[in-house]
């Protein structure tokens, strides 16, 4: 047995795993999207080939444009704030002070809670008449906000929830990145008379860049496919105001039973996420790009 054969043998289990658990569903989804797949097809296995008709129908659906735009807003809004707040907290916790580890552990809570639980709790907090958010607003003399009952407010509301859920992930990774920056650099900067802002701008930020890349790319891939949070809080409503490509794909499949169209939207998402995935791989290969 040559070294090469041995190498291949060692690769086989991983390769098999990827083929079975990633390759097969992916191929199946692509096949599904180019066929007229109805409820009947599940039993009979018959689904006529229709080429790109599903893609055209799904993209031609009036909800598609809205869902695509919502997905962009949802992703960009979530990532910007998750990352910003996560980074601020990471820098804050980088200074050692009494109870910092405990506090940091507590901040992980949103990440550890099942999404269905977080979603349900936030849904109650957003409640128009009895929710804690509007009660607080009224207390300080501000008008109540129609969080989930207005087509303009519902998307910001689910984004807000998703930001809350995503902060710990950003905090933990960025905090780890900060820990890896040698303290001697800060000492040198301090000797050169750099103030806190300059230390952050010229030492922390450039050295954190590889971690930043990774956090942003993973965040993008995670956020673009968020489903449960939206489903639990608004179900894509009111009047499609919080419909993203994921919930739209689900709705096409399980409300309209147009499984081919649902698969088509799913594939569009996979394509976008794959794009970001490649960027991530590149950035991971060149550590200090």
């Amino acid at each position, binding site marked *: 047995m040559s070294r090469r054969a041995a190498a291949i043998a060692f690769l086989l289990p991983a390769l098999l795993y990827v083929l079975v658990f990633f390759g097969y569903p992916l191929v199946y989804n692509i096949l599904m999207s180019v066929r007229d797949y109805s409820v*009947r097809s599940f*039993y009979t296995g018959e689904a006529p080939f229709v080429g790109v008709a599903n893609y055209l129908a799904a993209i031609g659906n009036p909800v598609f444009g809205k869902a695509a735009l919502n997905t962009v807003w949802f992703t960009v809004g979530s990532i910007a704030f998750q990352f910003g707040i996560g980074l601020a907290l990471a820098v804050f916790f980088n200074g050692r002070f009494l109870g910092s580890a405990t506090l940091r552990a507590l901040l992980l809570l949103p990440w550890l809670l099942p999404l269905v639980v977080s979603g349900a709790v936030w849904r109650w907090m957003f409640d128009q008449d009895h929710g804690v958010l509007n009660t607080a607003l009224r207390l300080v003399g501000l008008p109540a906000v129609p969080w989930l*009952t*207005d087509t303009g407010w519902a998307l910001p509301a689910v984004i807000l929830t998703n930001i809350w859920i995503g902060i710990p992930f950003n905090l933990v990774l960025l905090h780890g990145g900060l820990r890896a920056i040698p303290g001697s650099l800060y000492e040198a900067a301090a000797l050169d008379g750099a103030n806190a802002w300059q230390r952050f701008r010229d030492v922390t930020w450039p050295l954190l860049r590889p971690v930043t890349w990774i956090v942003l790319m993973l965040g993008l891939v995670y956020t673009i496919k968020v489903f449960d949070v939206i489903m639990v809080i608004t179900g894509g*409503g*009111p*009047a499609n105001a919080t419909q993203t490509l994921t919930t739209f794909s689900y709705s096409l499949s*399980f409300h309209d*039973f147009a499984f081919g169209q649902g698969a088509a939207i799913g594939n569009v998402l996979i394509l976008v996420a794959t794009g970001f995935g490649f960027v991530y791989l590149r950035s991971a290969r060149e550590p200090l790009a």
Partner: protein
Amino acid sequence: MTALSSTIARLNKAIGRPAAAVALVLALAACGSSGGSAANSITELDYYTDQQGSAAWQKVLDTCARQTGVTIQRQTVPTDQMLPKILQGASSRSLPNLVFTDNPTVQQIASTGALTPLSDYGIATDSYYDSIVKAGTYQGKVYGLAPGVNGLALLYNKDMLAEAGVEPPRTWDELKAAAAKLTKGQRYGLAFSAIPSEEGTWQFLPFFWSNGADLSTLDSDRAVRALEFVSGLVSAGSASKSVLNWNQNDVADQFVAGNAAMMINGSWNLARLDDEKSLHYGVVPIPTPAAGGEPTVALGGEIGVIPATGQATQQSAAKVLSCLLSPDVMQSWDAGHAYVPSKKDVAEKFGQQHPTMQPFVTEVATARSRSAELGERYPKVSQALATAVQAAITGSQSPEQALRQAQQAGGS
């Protein structure tokens, strides 16, 4: 068996149906059952996940297991996972032997060819309400029946109405006036559900149908007037805008908490209301557009169907289904979960025994099957209608615009 059936699904693709059918027979033989004789154990699937419903259902399943001598392996999934579960089972040929599914989905499932008609087992369909038989009928064959049905009614807080000097409303005008008069401080006059799913459609249909509108033309004048009425209750402030986020359990919570003086809800919540000792509630049929009209509510309830899983298990499943449909068992389940018996004569007696159920019994007689008219097209139309109701309530579109868009979306 499940491993076998997925093998069969693969065989199907590889060697074609006739050969796979032979393989299926062989597989069944391997499972220790043969055609002709009945299996002594069957699998059953339902979505009664709430504590009360689940306990009541378990009780009648136990009764029928005793009566038929068939062991029933029960499996329960949440409502929204029911259909994916059935489709999964259909594609891998591992469907449960007996399935209780929401009645508007029966035609979809029957269209796959995975179900067997009840006539194969000599289960009679006479003496049932027409609407429930229609809901279980696909292309002229009856594929299932329900041991209990339900519909929506108007439930009101007796103390609040008495205090405000309001009579339970019978017409739309009375409902509008009563809801406005009962709205006070933190309390709304009326609560209902308008979420963007089947539940929202189901809650709107009584107004839609009672006004003579039709699912085949969502944007007719009568439909527009029904939606104007319902969304008008919210814009007048008589119902909370939160109806957009409330499912029917949330609606019942609001009613129990005293945040709503009246609510549109189903009979299955009665047991919960009875638990609240300080709450005195009454039930009247859903108000109609004009005095003396008969409300047309949508028919609710789960239909028992028998998938094609092999003669032996099918026969046993049919025995269990027949038992569940027998008057005594039917009554025990319906009393346990506050459903209306699906047989006319049983229901009439039932209504006399349970006065709070009487309005529901009255309404079920004229209730309409959601899928009878549109068949397989219903789910898509229903989704479009629920979205239109939301658009009108948020005010992002006028009822007319919203329904015109729904007609385009659902009709395509």
